[in-house]
């Protein structure tokens, strides 16, 4: 366990230069991009002296190296700064306003992708080189190549407009949360905590189409990976031995899956970052009020501090998830040591 602790500390320290590099790149890109947040916000009617005053107040007239140092020092102090537009709210408050929606969508999208990926991958692996396998491999390629907004719109049309059985956008029915205060911001969880099962049900209904969209697109990669690993594991000696000893196929499969799972776990960690990216497109399609749509909007307004803060936050978030995945390795496979 001491080795694991050292590993966690080293991995955590390694996150710092990653975030620092990312922050520097984002800082440079934003300054190289044409325009500035003040001009974007006040529009064409504002007099030049007013724009200058706002730039001065926001510190945008300082030399770039001074702005950079100010920002880095702020981050070290845990101060992500304030947005440069609309009321100049603290960036962290903006992030925490939008993060729960993305987390909720990501979790459900993740679950859907894992379920579909594991089932299709296992079936394809077991039935390798048959028609079923070919069909599922074809599915994985199509799913991987699907464009999220297109798939989302198809779902909206079929389930929302033609069949009218599922909502096509938003997190919850309008007006349902009046007089109700969230606890974590995750509606399903909060509904359970506060005993508002109408909210739980309604939130789940709203989650179906976006998480299916996200989950299906991301399941393609799992299908292929699970299939390849299953084929590999199923041909190994210990599986033959297990079968020779008369173990039921289900038990054999369980052993095989457990062994095939380690590379899949790595994939899960990597997919999490892709999930967040996918969530941006899914959020836009389903009017989901999460981080993706928020970040896109702020990029449009060149809101330096918010963009920088959000990206740093994401970087830390993804690093932590990957770290957790690495730790899970050790727990799943005792052979792995750090």
């Amino acid at each position: 366990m001491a080795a694991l602790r050292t590993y966690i500390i080293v991995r955590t320290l390694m996150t710092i230069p990653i975030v620092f590099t990312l922050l520097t790149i984002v800082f440079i890109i934003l300054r190289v991009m044409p325009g500035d947040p003040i001009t974007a916000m006040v529009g064409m009617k504002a007099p030049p002296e007013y724009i200058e005053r706002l730039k001065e107040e926001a510190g945008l007239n300082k030399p770039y190296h001074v702005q950079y140092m100010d920002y880095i020092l702020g981050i070290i102090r845990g101060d992500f700064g304030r947005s440069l537009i609309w009321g100049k709210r603290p960036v962290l408050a903006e992030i925490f306003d939008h993060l729960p929606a993305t987390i909720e969508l990501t979790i459900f999208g993740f679950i859907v992708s894992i379920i579909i990926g594991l089932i299709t991958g296992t079936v394809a692996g077991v039935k390798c080189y048959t028609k079923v396998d070919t069909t599922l491999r074809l599915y994985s390629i199509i799913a991987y190549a699907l464009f999220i907004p297109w798939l989302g719109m198809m779902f909206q049309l079929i389930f929302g407009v033609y069949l009218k059985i599922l909502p096509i956008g938003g997190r919850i029915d309008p007006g349902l949360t009046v007089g109700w205060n969230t606890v974590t911001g995750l509606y399903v969880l909060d509904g359970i905590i506060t005993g508002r099962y109408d909210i739980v049900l309604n939130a789940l209904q709203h989650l179906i189409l976006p998480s299916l969209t996200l989950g299906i697109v991301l399941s393609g990669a799992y299908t292929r990976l699970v299939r390849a690993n299953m084929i590999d594991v199923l041909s190994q000696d210990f599986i033959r031995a297990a079968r020779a000893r008369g173990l039921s196929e289900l038990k054999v499969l369980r052993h095989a899956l457990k062994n095939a799972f380690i590379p899949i776990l790595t994939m899960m960690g990597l997919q999490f970052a892709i999930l967040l990216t996918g969530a941006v497109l899914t959020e836009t399609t389903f009017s989901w009020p999460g981080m993706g749509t928020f970040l896109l909007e702020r990029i449009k307004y060149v809101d330096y501090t918010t963009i920088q803060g959000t990206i740093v936050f994401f970087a830390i978030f993804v690093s932590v998830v990957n770290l957790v995945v690495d730790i899970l390795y050790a727990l799943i496979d005792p052979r792995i040591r750090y």
Partner: protein
Amino acid sequence: MAINMKALFIAAVVLIALGVVFFAVSKPPVTSPTPTTTPPTTTPAVSQIVIGVTDKVTDLDPSNAYDFFTWEVLNNVMEGLMRYKPGTTELMYGIAESHEVQEGGKVYVFHLKKDLKFADGTPCTAQDVVRSIKRVMEIQGDPSWLVTEFVEDVVAVDDYTVKFVLKKPVSYFLALLATPPYFPVHPDYKPDEIDSDQTAGGVGPYKIVKWVRDQELVLEANPYYHGEKPKIERVIIRFFKDATTLRLALERGEVDIAWRTLNPADIESLKGNPDLQVIEVPGAAIRYIIINVKMPGTDNKLVRQALAAAIDRADICKRVYLDTWEPLYSLIPKGMWSHKDVFLEKYGEGSNVELAKSLLQQAGYSEDNPLEVELWYTPTHYGDTEKDLAAVLKEQWEATGMIKVTIKSAEWTQYLEFTRKGALQLSLYGWYPDYIDPDDYTTPFLHSAANAWTGSGYANPEVDSLLDEAAVKETIEERTPYYEQVQEILAEEVPITPLIQGKLFVAAKKNVGGIVLDPTMLFRYWLLYWKE
């Protein structure tokens, strides 16, 4: 093994399918014309209308809010001394009951209605009006110029009397008073800083009961409102990220009204839906081309006139906007007093190629020596159609055979910077009014002391003097001839070419009544009702 795997797969598929069906069938009925669709256990059933928009509420503080949709919301939860009569551009009293103009238009004294209250029952007096306006002056947010440019001082004479001392007489001061920076706000608003998320509101027909940024805004009737009580108890604004989802939500019944802004193609399609109504009225938004009068080529008046003559506005409306905009032949929009179709009178309807050619020849150009111009647009700020607008203009101008157009684009912020520096020769722009008055459609574009932002370099002392005169005359009858003359000069000198005027579209369920739109572009939620 084969059987087991098959069973496992089938079981999983069935489970997922069952899950979907379970949630689907357990979905409460879709929003119906009658009250609340899904009454939450903790709130009573109330009459409710859901409005979907792709806009956003930027800032609930009138000292800093400066966009149309936020102003619309503020107009529903606050009220100023003056307001517009719904369906018209006529001004009427809001929280004032009378007023006097003194000292030749330099002093305005307003008498407030008695027993005005904020939505929580706190009394609203003249002191609150003064506090709110001074707060705007002190905070100096984006729209503060609507106060600071005109008001020298504002004082509460007593609990029910507010006195404004202006820097100089301003004939459209009453129109300014109908803008949010002049609205009284609840004492809960921070006194000396922007309070963007404050929901205490003002003395309007509705109060804010819930606001989840970018998700929903829930309004309920203000029990203390001094005017007629809203017919709908609760109005919910749902924020959508794109117009297509908004359209689908309307078709599915998730929203009762789809408001700003549907795509032109969606509007056309929704018109054919028998369960919906699509309402269309002229809007106050205009589009135009700023022409740089200092740049070689367009510094020649004949060239500018030729460019104006070759434009076919109806063709633009049809091809680019599917007739969701209409031709505009002056900077002052149709429907507003003093509007004159000056470009129509001078250059005719459609593309007047012969006139354009003749003017270009007089300017020294020919088919062998064509005029070369740069037309700039910004790709996203005015929507996806901007590129098409530039392409159609290029086609129309090049149809003369004597003009060669190069199309260029820049992102919005860069576009603004280029414009201010006077670096663009021809640039496409749009205008939403701050106050509904011809002054707001002329002075910012043509007065040399106010048009630096256009980068056109246009200055004409005669126009300056006409606009200054028009601003101090008191009646519409007195002011009209001045604006008519300014429009005549505009058509002659063409520092700006008007192109098109927007229409407003609302798509709603058939049984939604009380949708009243007008060029102020403000949707009054308190007039809405469900038809029997």
